């Protein structure tokens, strides 16, 4: 409809999108590459959302964590990769997690809604990163850090499978899937995940059942925010080799939609992230015939349609 209004043939546009994405290894690779950070960040947010904590602060949290990952990976370049990579990830996780703890503590102590505090934290964190980056760590006249050594780079798919030639798809994608599966297991199969969901559903009952609600709020915020830091791995270790300011391009907000579309189920997050990846990359491929803005509109419409169809199916089931 929208496409017709702007005078393009929708079939042409969509068939181009499909053929570009699925017709070549490169297109498929790029789609998966774009989905990777969304899977990671969406899984982290799913944990927060299960506790009914509306963490809008992923954008800031993931940037801080990624920044730290980039720095640690650079300074530990001399160490073997099996030490340097985990060390970088752990540092990133801790930094993102601690920044996630700030709104959690304010909520627990003073009862301030996390929605407001996390939004404010975004401004603070991004400004601080900008300050540290420009004044201390950036390569002169750029907004990115020093390049990490090749030893700590994650191999690309194209190194093993020639069909993905040219695509930035790398093994962080596999790591992301593992994170989603782990998050799924954590939420649905462990006692801790159970308590998180209980608090999310009904915190009063949880209190009477004997769950320490504050502990749940703090830890789910820490874990959820911490996970978002791994987003940086895809960009830094799998793609550019350095942290660049603005690399996330509002990914932290898109991931909110990804998690919600998947009803906060991390396995579902994989699929909804793939959909977003498809729309994102697919949008690029038809850029020549359709303006980018129109593709954003179409992305929005696709998601709204899926959500309403979902409700319709649900209603039909109940009847």
């Amino acid at each position, binding site marked *: 409809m929208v496409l017709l209004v702007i005078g393009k043939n929708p079939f042409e546009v969509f068939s181009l999108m499909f053929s570009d994405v699925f017709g070549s290894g490169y297109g498929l690779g790029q789609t998966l590459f774009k989905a990777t950070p969304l899977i990671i960040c969406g899984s982290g947010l799913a944990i927060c959302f299960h506790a009914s904590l509306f963490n809008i602060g992923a954008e800031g949290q993931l940037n801080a964590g990624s920044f730290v990952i980039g720095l640690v990976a650079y300074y530990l370049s001399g160490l073997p990769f099996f030490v340097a990579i985990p060390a970088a990830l752990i540092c990133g996780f801790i930094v993102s997690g601690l920044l996630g703890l700030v709104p959690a503590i304010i909520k627990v102590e003073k009862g301030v809604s996390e929605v407001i505090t996390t939004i404010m934290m975004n401004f603070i964190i991004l400004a601080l990163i900008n300050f540290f980056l420009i004044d201390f760590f950036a390569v002169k006249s750029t907004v990115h850090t020093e390049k990490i050594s090749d030893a700590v780079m994650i191999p690309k798919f194209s190194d093993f499978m020639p069909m993905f030639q040219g695509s930035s798809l790398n093994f962080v994608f596999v790591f992301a899937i593992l994170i989603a599966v782990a998050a799924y297991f954590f939420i649905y*199969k*462990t*006692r801790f995940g*159970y*308590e998180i*969901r*209980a608090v999310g*559903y*009904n915190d*009063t*009952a*949880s*209190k*009477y*059942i*004997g*769950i320490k609600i504050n502990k749940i709020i703090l830890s789910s915020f820490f874990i959820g925010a911490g996970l978002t830091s791994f987003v940086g791995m895809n960009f830094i270790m799998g793609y550019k080799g350095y942290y660049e300011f603005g690399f996330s391009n509002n990914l932290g907000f898109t991931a909110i939609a990804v998690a919600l579309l998947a009803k906060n189920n991390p396995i579902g997050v994989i699929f909804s992230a793939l959909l977003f990846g498809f729309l994102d990359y697919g949008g690029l491929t038809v850029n020549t015939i359709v303006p980018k803005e129109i593709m954003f509109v179409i992305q929005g419409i696709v998601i709204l349609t899926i959500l309403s169809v979902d409700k319709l199916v649900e209603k039909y089931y109940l009847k």
Partner: protein
Amino acid sequence: MNIIEFKNITKKFGNLTANDNVTFSIKKNSVHCIVGENGAGKSTLMKILFGVYRQDEGIITIKGKEADFSSPLDAIDCRIGMLHQHFMLIEDFTVLENVILGSEITRNIKLDFDKSEKILNEYIEKYNLDLSLDKKISELSISEQQKVEILKLLYRNSDIIIFDEPTAVLSPIEVIEFFKIIYQFKIEGKTIILITHKLNEVKEISEYVSVLRRGKLVYETDAENLDIKILSKEIVGDVDVKNDSGNYEYEGEPGVLAELKNINLKKNKLNVLNNFDIKLKKGEIYGICGVEGNGQNEVIDILYGLNKNFTGDLNIHTKKISLVPDDRIKKGMIKEFSVGENIIIKKKNLKSVNSKSILKAANDVIIKYDVRLPEVNAPMESLSGGNQQKVIIAREVELDNDLLIFSHPTRGVDIAASSFIHSMILEQKKKGKAILLVSSDLDEILKLSDRFGVINKGCIVAEFEKNQFNLQDETEKTILLESIGKLMIGITGEQKN
């Protein structure tokens, strides 16, 4: 004249048949009671009438016309009102705002509060509701909240009013007040449908009675031919109500398990507990009876360790405390979780939770306590109130804790389940547990407790020992009940004229 006719109503939820070919009618301007056990299908039938559910088969005729409601809005248009078991009020809104919500009177685009206020105050006076319109719902007691719901029905000019277990949350004196309102409704020509468990209330107020059992209409009668014995037999069916007087005395070593001394507690600068004293002993049931909102919940929170802002001495010689809370949906369970998940969430020693352990926990309880549910993995919210309560009590009892707190354990629960719950409580006493029973149902307090105190304004105003209240003589009993009733509402002996 029949104002409502149900013809062959059938409603199924999955494998569960909630209403099975139900046919009966309700006369205009009558008080019609619908009785039955938990899960007998009373609420479902009324929700169909109110447009919440749609029947699978059958026809409902209202005022001679076939009703085909697709939502409660249609029912409200037909001037049907329903007072639900769980109130539908917004806590942060005032009484006025809650009542007018959905049918506001406006002047241009502005809400006309003055006009609505005038109308509502007329109703309040006429029905003697004793409510102030500018108070917030969160400041009101349960019985006051119920009055707000009633005011909502009046404001919408309902002339057929469905009450779903209205007296379950009321103290004896409040019930009398409530009945006065119902009589007033009748005088005004309204038709009243009352769902209840309490047979003495049926006897007192109903003109017609219909009994549902397992979804079927099994018995109908009118006030003249009403016999409580037949009625209770029809409700329960072939199983006879256990009225056991077995030996539940604890024979082990006695001892004080918990003691509260001179407890004072302030909430919003008001004293909610005033020099509160009780002792809980092993193998003894201590009852607290009183009108709701006199500090009962605060005492429970203190004992259970959730509130530490009090002054006074609290000595508890155990950390193993179980609680069956007063509001099972809000405090007792995660309604989206299944039965098994709700049980397992409290078993702290269980580190991994998998579908197997959940299923086992659920099956154990379902069999042992005869819980009826659509299917094992169904969420708790799909169970009837009595069955939810059984699950919660089973969970708490199975933990084998030393101190058990039961707050209104049989509220909104039918006769068979009530007597089952009562014998469960007595069994725990025999095992030597210390038990605190909080209830506004005086019969329950008298039946179960070894000692009990009457609470009023955060203070135990009188305490009774078993030999003082376990009376055979009917007149003495009446006198005792009357004086307890007075203590509950704060009229002490000295003030007697």
